[in-house]
């Protein structure tokens, strides 16, 4: 029984981390119809910048605030000066994000070296909680809580605000939104920056147990892609459910069958794609 509770909590914490990661990717795709491959780099940059902030100030919370903002600005600049030049040329945009992914990978390797860093945890979350026989790290509970809060905030913003309705309208029919006189380039820029913000946030939050190392950008990008494909591209609810599915599958599948670590994630993805080509919550 203890085993199942601990593993479920493990799966949930990993799933929530994946949600933070995949939410931005899904949002950007939903609106702009491009798969932003730089998303993995935003994660890694977030983790590295977070590490730099912690090393200088010793404050995890400060890292949590500064790193995502820095990366959001980077995302903003990238959209404004690179992606917008190729508006509506989806292939060129995807290739461009792929190129920036490589540039970021080399830049981070150059700046931070080939080492694998684990971000130090904030002291108030360093301890473990004990319930009867079960010992569980409090940081992982914090990750679960953060994921739920961010999901709620995103849901509220998307469903209850004007900005949210503009985004949702943009997802449905971008031309019509433009026809209504809404400044879509500005909207796109904002959403792209938000996506970068969320990726960097997941980088800082994931830092203490996933860490920052060369190649993490590609690994998390792959996981995020699996999540949005399972959940349905562009659907926030899909990203949430997809993250939980992947997080739990990975946790329960990986330990008994380490040789099949990839299989336990990709096989369900293939099955879901075969049965529902647009993912669980995606629309044609």
């Amino acid at each position, binding site marked *: 029984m203890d*085993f199942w509770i*601990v*593993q479920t909590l*493990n799966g949930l*914490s*990993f799933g929530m981390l994946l949600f933070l990661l995949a939410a931005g990717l899904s949002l950007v795709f939903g609106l702009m*119809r491009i798969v932003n491959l730089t998303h993995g780099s935003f994660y890694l940059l977030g983790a590295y910048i977070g590490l730099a902030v912690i090393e200088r100030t010793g404050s995890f919370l400060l890292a949590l605030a500064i790193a995502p903002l820095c990366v959001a600005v980077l995302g903003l600049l990238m959209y404004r000066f690179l992606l917008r*030049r*190729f*508006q*509506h*040329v*989806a*292939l060129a945009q995807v290739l461009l994000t792929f190129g920036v992914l490589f540039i970021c990978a080399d830049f981070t*390797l150059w700046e931070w*070296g*080939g*080492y*694998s860093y*684990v971000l130090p945890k904030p002291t108030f979350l360093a301890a*473990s909680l*004990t319930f009867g026989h079960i*010992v*569980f*790290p409090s*940081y*992982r509970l914090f990750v679960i809580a953060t994921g739920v809060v961010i999901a709620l905030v995103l849901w509220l913003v998307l469903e209850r605000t004007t900005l949210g309705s503009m985004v949702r309208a943009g997802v449905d029919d*971008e*031309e019509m939104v*433009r026809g209504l006189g809404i400044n879509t380039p500005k909207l796109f820029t904002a959403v792209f920056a938000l996506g970068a913000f969320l990726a960097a946030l997941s980088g800082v939050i994931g830092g203490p*147990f*996933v*860490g920052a*190392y*060369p*190649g993490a950008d590609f*690994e998390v990008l792959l996981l995020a892609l699996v999540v949005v494909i399972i959940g349905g591209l562009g659907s926030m609810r899909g990203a949430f459910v997809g993250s939980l599915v992947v997080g739990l599958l*990975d*946790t*329960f599948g*990986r*330990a*008994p069958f*380490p*040789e099949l*670590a990839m299989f336990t994630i990709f096989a369900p993805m293939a099955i879901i794609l075969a049965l529902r080509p647009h993912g669980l919550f995606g629309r044609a």
Partner: protein
Amino acid sequence: MVGGKRRHNHGLQDIPLKKGGTVYQPRHSLALAIGVLTLLVVMTAGIIGAPTTPAAETKTPIKIGVLAPLSGPLAVLARDIVDGARLYMDEVNGEMVGRKVELTVEDYEFKSAVALTKTKKLVERDGVHAVVGVILSAAAIAMKDYIHAQQVPFIVSGAAVAEPLMMDKPSPYVFRTTFSASQVPTPLAKFTYDKLKARTATVIAGDTVGTIELVMGFARAFEEAGGKVVQEIYAPIGTTDFGPFIGRLRRDVDVVAALVAGADGIRFIKQYEEFGLKGKIQVVDTAPGITDIALLPSSGPSALGMYASQPYVYTIDNPRNQKFVQAFHTKYGREPGGPAEATYVALAAIHQALTATGGNIEDKAKFLEALRHMDLDAPRGHVRFDKYQNIITDVMITRIDKVGDQIVPVVVETIPGVDQFLGMAPEAYIKRPRLVTLKGTFGK
């Protein structure tokens, strides 16, 4: 400025385009093409303009390739390989027997395929006379046939402890100054049974040949001593979240024998502590994984109280080692780990063989013969190669302790002159099944 921009755009951006259409903006692609061309021209010019190699000296230099996984999960240990080699070069002023010696460092990114590619590059393009380094067993095994065909002496000095590397189809070109998978865990297993009084054990390791063999070496020796291995857990290399594995760990065992290397090791031992197991179930390191000196600054507090087994640790109390540690510390500001010393020994072995052959590394038969007779006063103590060209070495068992405010591996026992055949006749030992084939046979 604004007017200029307008003119260039021809207002194209303001025309609504069909979603997903492929309307192109020729001016942009033209600008891009010109930009790329300019960049290419600049780069080519840079290459042409770069200084060419200095004129050949009367005696051609000896070139040694250093192969290390400078990026990837073991990057911290890789630094030890390069620094150990460079320290030796400093001590001999870049010269051996009157010939200049050049090191060429290559990063194999902790991937076997890359290791092979980089070896080919080192041999065919750089023309190295010998190769040292390599941590990943699979990489060393992948390189072996090529090394043999090209007749390039290769001294494994990172780790690459797998038994098949030296025992199956042994190559006269392959040497190893680290240790073999049975060599270091076996004394630890006896120690764990006799001194720590452990009777049941779980083994946990990274899922690759070298790390599997190390915990299997422990498991075999532990059962031979009278203990019982009740569970085997393997985590893929590069595992970030050990929660699922720690969740599966049986709570009723006396000891966890581990070999989780590099960054994975740091994450494992930290998460082991977070899940409340530190101090409840003793962890022993079957070889320097979690307790590797390069990792102690990160894993230190969580690793306190662990026991580990290794052929070299910087706290060995002898004058030769103190001199080495002092020099290493002065140059790099940290303590040398196993790969640093083993690579330093590899360079010293090459130096000794060169001295014996009058600096002639080109006569391979003579050079190999001299290398086989290595007889060195290494920092770890006196070392030689056995018939299968693997090092015969003392093995130290250490405990991670806090001395003052420093976290230090304290030597608690030294087992002198251990070879890879564990004292058996080589022919008899080689008939035993390879350790890697024992995977999955315990805990049934």
